[in-house]
């Protein structure tokens, strides 16, 4: 048993590894994941505020603790002690349950996240993952679909207009983007041949050798490279799913005050806040697991350092990848303005979902063709027929009629009688007298030189 540790190589857990866990090992891992999520949330809030501040050329939080890193801790401690205001029109029970659902589902989702391979924990061989089931990716999706309830019920139970609008927006948004997210994961299932998170990480350990211009090259194992379209769709859908900028329409401050949590205060608001950040961490960790090789070290490291994936080292790689993805989320928030709601929904349904479907179809054909299940003639004939069909459709697709470009005179002529007057086309705007004075005042300086 101990030879696992001394061998200094990565040991992938199997489903039996989790069945053999003793209860107190499970308890340690459970408390560990819980504490880790709380700490990571505190860290992420500070991380986000500092990065956004740096991007806006200001210092950000720098007062509490060393370099301001304890700011979120003090804020978090302050929140539960604030006065709690429950609206008179609130539906008390549902109002109470909503933040609980949000926080619970956010924590539960992390139970199937693989942080590392098999390690020696107090003399027992156990995987750095709370548990795993054959369909653990679906557990994550189930958690994210249940977390919609927290948001929607909060909006409804507040008995107020802005939260209701926020709740309605988010239910539509999260359901639509969950479809796109699920479809992007289908490609991973097809390539890995499993739905268990630990097995998906194992499947990305090494790429297949491929023949490229007569050379034997090892293809990259990461699904972010192999399944690039799925990776991009997943990243976009993940931002929509977590209600983050530029897709933060359910809590758009300039339109809906605070969105679904407008009427929440004190500890219940803290739960929503916690859930939002944990969700962000979850989708980043999930992306790491599905597309970025999970807890395994990035490609060149293992060439120089054999033991990079052994023992507790995978934690380093895993959280390094997660932090880089979180930086991406923060970067998006600092850079992009919020999208308009109808454009956002149209993008989800008319771009992301069709593109995913076509990509899955193509991938399925590619896999069948490569597996040798069909003969060479069938393969080439099918490819040819499909290519011709696609080209024919693309050529014959009815393009929208472009309206004739009218000159400005013609447009003016077409205006109905009684239209409001417009200035003449050859209008010469006289220069502003103030500009002339400013130039004159500056002039003496140039004369001196």
């Amino acid at each position, binding site marked *: 048993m101990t030879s696992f540790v001394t061998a200094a190589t990565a040991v992938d857990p199997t489903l039996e590894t989790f069945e053999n866990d003793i209860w107190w090992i499970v308890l340690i891992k459970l408390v560990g994941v819980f504490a880790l999520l709380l700490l990571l949330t505190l860290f992420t809030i500070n991380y986000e505020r500092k990065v956004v501040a740096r991007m806006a050329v200001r210092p950000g939080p720098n007062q509490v603790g060393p370099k301001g890193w304890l700011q979120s801790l003090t804020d978090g401690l302050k929140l539960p002690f604030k006065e709690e205001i429950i609206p008179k029109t609130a*539906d008390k029970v549902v109002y109470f349950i909503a933040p609980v659902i949000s926080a619970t589902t956010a924590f539960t989702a992390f139970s199937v996240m693989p942080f590392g391979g098999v390690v020696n924990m107090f003399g027992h061989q156990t995987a750095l993952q709370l548990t795993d089931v054959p369909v653990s990716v679906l557990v994550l999706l189930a958690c994210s679909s249940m977390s919609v309830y927290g948001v929607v*019920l909060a909006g*409804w139970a507040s008995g107020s207009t802005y939260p209701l609008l926020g709740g309605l927006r988010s239910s539509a948004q999260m359901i639509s983007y969950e479809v796109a997210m699920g479809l992007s994961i289908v490609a991973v299932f097809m390539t890995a041949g499993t739905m268990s998170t630990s097995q998906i990480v194992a499947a990305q350990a090494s790429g297949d050798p491929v023949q490229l211009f007569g050379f034997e090259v090892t293809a990259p194992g990461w699904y972010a490279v192999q399944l690039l379209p799925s990776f991009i769709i997943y990243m976009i859908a993940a931002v929509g799913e977590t209600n983050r900028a530029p897709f933060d329409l359910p809590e758009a401050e300039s339109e809906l005050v605070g969105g679904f949590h407008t009427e929440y205060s004190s500890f219940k608001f803290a739960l929503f806040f916690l859930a939002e950040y944990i969700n962000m961490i979850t989708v980043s960790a999930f992306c790491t697991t599905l597309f970025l090789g999970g807890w395994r070290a990035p490609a060149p490291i293992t060439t120089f350092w054999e033991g990079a994936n052994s023992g507790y080292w995978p934690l380093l790689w895993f959280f390094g990848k997660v932090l880089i993805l979180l930086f991406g989320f923060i970067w998006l928030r600092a850079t992009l303005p919020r999208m308009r709601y109808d454009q956002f929904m149209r993008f989800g349904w008319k771009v992301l979902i069709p593109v995913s479907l076509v990509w899955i179809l193509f991938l399925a054909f590619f896999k069948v063709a490569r597996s040798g299940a069909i003969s060479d003639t069938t393969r080439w004939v099918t490819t040819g027929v499909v290519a011709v069909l696609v080209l024919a459709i693309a050529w014959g697709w009815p393009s929208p009629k472009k309206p004739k470009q009218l000159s400005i005179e013609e447009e003016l002529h077409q205006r109905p009688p009684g239209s409001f007057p417009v200035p003449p086309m050859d209008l010469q705007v006289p220069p502003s007298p103030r500009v002339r004075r400013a130039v004159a005042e500056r002039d003496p300086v140039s004369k001196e030189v």
Partner: protein
Amino acid sequence: MNAVSTGEQVAFWILGSLAVIGALGMVLARNAVHSALWLVVTMLNLGFFYVINSAPFLGFVQIIVYTGAIMMLFLFVLMLVGRDASDSLIETLRGQRIAAIVLGIGFAALIGTGLARALGSTFTVGLDKANANGNVEGLASLLFTKYVFAFEVTSALLITAAVGAMILAHVEKAKEDKRDQVTRMKERFRPGNYPGPKPGPGIYANTMSVAAPARLPDGNGAERSISPILPVRELSQAEAAPKGTEK
């Protein structure tokens, strides 16, 4: 008969009672949204039942599709209807409620005893063989080979229903009803219409209420500054009294 383990029995009694409580709550709740939430509890428990009966895929798909998507759409509609829309409790048919209860219990008893007698001594056969290549693979190979036609027909039916509903619900505006910018501008600058924005209510001047009108130069309240949906009301004695928070 396969032996039922203690763990499974414990899980059955906990989840089973929760599922039944959820079902009863759904029928008995006055508020439509509460009914929907009770149904969510029942569906979640059914999902867990699938999981402990070694059908994890089915269980989680039940949670994602039924609990996550379908019930969410129900809630969506119920929320749009409004939160005060609860059913009236007046019986339109005399004795209908008692008859419904009796018939319901009778039907449940009939189904329960029927199932118990029919399946009470049935062995589970071939479960391991069906799951030999994994639960998901087993389901997939059945769905995409033996039942592929039924599967496709069902999906075609569902798509037809969805498209039909969209066509029925979609209202196309006639071209004449669309008012262009010139007409809207003419309406706005029509004599008798004030084209500027409405004044805001007199909040913060001497009251925090949006129901307080803004002042005109002659000291009268500006009617246009208050939203017409605001009910005109006087504060009650209790509301007007100091809250005890002022120092």
